């Protein structure tokens, strides 16, 4: 009988981070501090640096998390597929969508289209942020035997609202505005009441309430202008498909606009 290998320090810290209360900044900061130390000690260890990137995003340190992307991309090939899928999720959360797309596509190819839940989740997340309806259709096809396929639900809402053709331009407009503000996102939510569906893409912003309001207004005005320009009623489109700008899980102070 094989004895399972003991958990590495990185595994322990990663698990602590995943299981921590997402709004408990003190605990998360402590874990990030330990991951930072471990990252320095191990040099170029992909798993540790990837956990550090996720940890930095968890405490709202968007720029520092983003600064690790290049070295992680360099270390990415030949890593554990689950780690790579998690990394792709972070890239999408930071709106590094081209890189996330590439990493996921390569992983699908190298894993021989073996369907892994992590990878499907990361891919659906990325396709939703990109507004890539073709990729979403591909993912819906791959998960057609699942009763609650996110990709199928998203496509269904877009079809009902007749917004499939506007998925990419819509998300492109939002991504341009959110580029340097977003720190994490949640896969689109389908809101279902009496068959009158709506789709919501959640974006977390580690800034003050005033800044979040400003961003949401900017997004609404830009999308309204777009929908008017293509002859559609913005109020109908935005009630079916929109962006929820939510505070980053760690506490935000109104005064200084940074994680307290």
């Amino acid at each position: 009988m094989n004895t399972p290998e003991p958990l590495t320090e990185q595994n322990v810290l990663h698990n602590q981070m995943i299981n921590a209360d997402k709004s408990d900044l003190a605990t998360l900061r402590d874990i990030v501090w330990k991951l930072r130390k471990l990252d320095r000690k191990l040099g170029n260890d992909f798993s540790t640096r990837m956990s550090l990137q996720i940890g930095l995003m968890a405490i709202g340190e968007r720029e520092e998390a983003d600064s690790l992307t290049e070295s992680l991309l360099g270390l990415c090939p030949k890593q554990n597929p689950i780690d790579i899928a998690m990394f792709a999720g972070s890239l999408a959360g930071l709106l590094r969508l081209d890189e996330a797309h590439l990493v996921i596509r390569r992983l699908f190819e190298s894993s021989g289209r073996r369907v892994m839940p992590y990878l499907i989740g990361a891919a659906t997340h990325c396709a939703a942020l990109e507004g890539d309806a073709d990729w979403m259709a591909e993912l819906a096809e791959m998960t057609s035997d699942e009763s609650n396929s996110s990709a199928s639900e998203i496509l269904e809402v877009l079809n009902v609202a007749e917004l499939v053709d506007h998925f990419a331009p819509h998300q492109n407009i939002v991504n341009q505005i959110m580029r340097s503000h977003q720190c994490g996102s949640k896969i689109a939510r389908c809101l279902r009441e009496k068959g009158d569906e709506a789709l919501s893409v959640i974006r977390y912003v580690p800034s003050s309430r005033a800044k979040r309001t400003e961003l949401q207004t900017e997004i609404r005005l830009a999308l309204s202008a777009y929908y008017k320009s293509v002859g559609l009623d913005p109020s109908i489109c935005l009630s079916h498909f929109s962006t929820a700008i939510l505070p980053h899980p760690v506490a935000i102070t109104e005064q200084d606009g940074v994680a307290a």
Partner: protein
Amino acid sequence: MRDAHTEAEWRTVINRCYYGAFRTMRGYARTVGFVVDRNRSVHRHLIQFLHASDDATLNQCADLLFNLRTLREISDYDEPGGITKTDAQGAIEDAADIIEEKLVEIEAKKKIR
């Protein structure tokens, strides 16, 4: 909120915040021509009505209500672990903004007109 320490309590807070804000806005909207169509989702329809207004404050209410509706959906249907204290705090701020600030602002504008 000071007494809400568990995820179950935060979920309840979010649910109450959404429905409090939704009912308040629906009540106001009815006074300015919003008609509830029984065959359609009144939730999405109300957001559409607020977006269609020429009043920027009502447009902002549509954004806040959309955020709250999204959070309410997660809190009612997602598996445990998906809701944080910050989500609940944010929901309170959004609902209070609609009920205590925006609506007062809208009423004041009406009086000036």
